[in-house]
């Protein structure tokens, strides 16, 4: 217990987190003193903070250091996820700007909560201890509860917040119970130490409580990544929340959840992988199928995207099941790449929804997009790229993401594991089902005639987000190599 105080080098490794924290605090501090006509100063601060943190995280280097008494491990793995979160934060701040101004809700608190949620996600990806994972997750979740209910005069937003809150807190309680059991079995909460202890002297046969703890953790994290059957909250919360918050929630917390799940199950409960791969395989089949089938029946585009995000979580869980086999590296890196690919296409699609919307908070139906191509050819083209990417067609990043996840599953199947062959077939069938509802929207845009039913809310920042997302979707679809090799290097520290 000699080195309770962290050294300066250790603190410097946390520069991106500290920048985000400070900019969040600064925003909170100046908000009461900003006059209404200078309202844009707080989002500018948020953008500056996320850009600075992004630069800082690029300059950290490739080393792997465990700091703060084993609570945080700074590595390429955490940096990969942190970059995802910082890009999401940057894009979401940009697309919130005009949306909130129109709702007369452009206040500093919103950006402060966004920064704190990002901080929680960044710490979650870097945590290497069950306690710090829990605390980071709570920082993220509590900020998101507030963001979901940010339009406090809208009943829909209230409802989204209370539903998210109740299920989220319940999930936290389950997760904590699981953590307490693991602590009771192993006497520690550090994931490496837990993994070593279980690997040497623990087994399900000797410790039935271990299975219980694993199930509790699956439930807790399952709520966070919205795996079926723990998904019930998601469509309501996504529909009721402000659309910019939905864009944030559909990418950030999910990626953070997967970052933590990978660490907890692979590092901490690695010797129980035979058990948890089966659990995750079942969850992934349920998640993909339920998400896609329910998305088929939706009239509202926002709700359709909500269900499609459940389905995408299902594909990502496939990567998790491969992580429990001999091809663990391929499984994990495909999961990381999938999270990265999901970021641009989803934020872009939600940005289009913000640009074209009805006056009310509840969102536009599929028919409102009829004939969009005649009225706004450029926007329709960008939306087409994003939808093709969500479907998983080349030459977009969505195709590459699906290709590597499915490829990893098929590789396992080729080693003679028929179970994974079945998984691959189900996944491909699901991708085909998902094509139906994405391409139906595309058909509405291009092939149908329709009158203008939506109000245009054009702004430069919003258009920038859409163009940026569409370009990134294409660029990383054609040149996925750099990100892919980064993902492969990132997971090495877990192996």
């Amino acid at each position, binding site marked *: 217990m000699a080195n309770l105080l962290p050294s300066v080098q250790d603190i410097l490794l946390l520069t991106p987190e500290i920048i985000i924290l400070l900019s969040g605090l600064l925003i909170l501090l100046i908000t009461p003193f900003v006059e209404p006509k200078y309202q844009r100063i707080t989002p500018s601060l948020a953008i500056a903070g996320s850009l600075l943190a992004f630069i800082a995280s690029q300059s950290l280097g490739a080393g792997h250091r465990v700091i703060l008494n084993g609570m945080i491990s700074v590595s390429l793995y955490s940096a990969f996820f942190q970059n995802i979160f910082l890009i999401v934060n940057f894009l979401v701040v940009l697309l919130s700007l005009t949306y909130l101004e129109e709702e007369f809700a452009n206040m500093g608190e919103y950006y402060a909560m966004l920064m704190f949620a990002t901080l929680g996600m960044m710490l979650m990806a870097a945590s290497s201890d069950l306690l710090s994972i*829990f605390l980071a997750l709570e920082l993220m979740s*509590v900020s998101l509860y507030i963001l979901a209910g940010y339009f406090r005069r809208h009943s829909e937003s*209230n*409802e989204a917040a209370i539903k998210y809150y109740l299920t989220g807190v319940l999930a936290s*309680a389950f997760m904590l119970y699981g*953590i307490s059991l693991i602590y009771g079995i192993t006497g520690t*909460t550090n994931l490496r130490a837990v993994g070593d202890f279980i690997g040497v002297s623990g087994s399900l046969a000797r410790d039935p409580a271990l299975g219980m703890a694993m199930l509790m953790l699956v439930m807790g994290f399952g709520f966070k990544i919205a795996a079926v059957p723990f998904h019930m909250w998601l*469509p309501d919360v996504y529909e009721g929340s402000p659309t910019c918050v939905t864009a944030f929630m559909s990418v950030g917390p999910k990626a953070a959840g997967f970052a933590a799940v990978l660490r907890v199950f692979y590092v901490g409960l690695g010797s129980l992988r035979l058990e948890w791969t089966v659990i995750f395989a079942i969850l992934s089949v349920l998640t993909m199928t339920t998400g896609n089938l329910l998305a088929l029946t939706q009239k509202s585009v926002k709700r359709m995207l909500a269900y499609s995000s459940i389905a995408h979580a299902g594909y990502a869980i496939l990567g998790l099941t491969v992580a429990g086999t001999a091809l663990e590296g391929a499984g994990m890196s495909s999961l990381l790449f999938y999270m990265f690919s999901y970021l641009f296409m989803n934020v872009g699609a939600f940005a289009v929804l913000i640009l074209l919307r009805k006056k009310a908070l509840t969102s536009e139906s599929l028919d409102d997009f009829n004939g969009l191509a005649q009225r706004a050819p450029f926007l329709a083209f960008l939306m087409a790229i994003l939808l093709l990417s969500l479907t998983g067609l080349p030459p977009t990043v969505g195709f590459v993401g699906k290709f590597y996840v499915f490829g990893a599953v098929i590789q396992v199947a080729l080693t003679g594991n028929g179970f994974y062959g079945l998984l691959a077939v189900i996944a491909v069938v699901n991708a085909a089902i998902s094509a139906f509802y994405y391409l139906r929207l595309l058909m509405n845009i291009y092939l149908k005639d329709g009158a203008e039913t939506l109000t245009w809310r054009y702004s430069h920042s919003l258009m920038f987000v859409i163009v940026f997302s569409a370009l990134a979707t294409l660029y990383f679809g054609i040149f996925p190599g750099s990100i892919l090799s980064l993902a492969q290097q990132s997971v090495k520290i877990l192996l």
Partner: protein
Amino acid sequence: MIPLTYYLGLGAALFTIGLIVVLTRRNILVIFMSIELMLNAVNINFVAFSRYFDHLQGDIIAIFVITVAAAEAAVGWGIVVSIFRNRGDVDIENINLLKW
């Protein structure tokens, strides 16, 4: 000395009671109270294990959990207050604008 299993039994019982109440009651205030009950059931586990191992780690975790529970409760009450302002009641059966 009271054996460890008694504490764990108490924790498990309180957790289960909390869960049952969360799933069956309709008043948000009661649900909030039972969520607190669940979190404190976990605290009993942590403190009991900590005592059993004779180190402080579990006690520290319990303090963190209490802090987090307080922050969560504050946000939760804020949400309930805004619901009450908009609707005039806090019965969860009536919170049904968003479905399917």
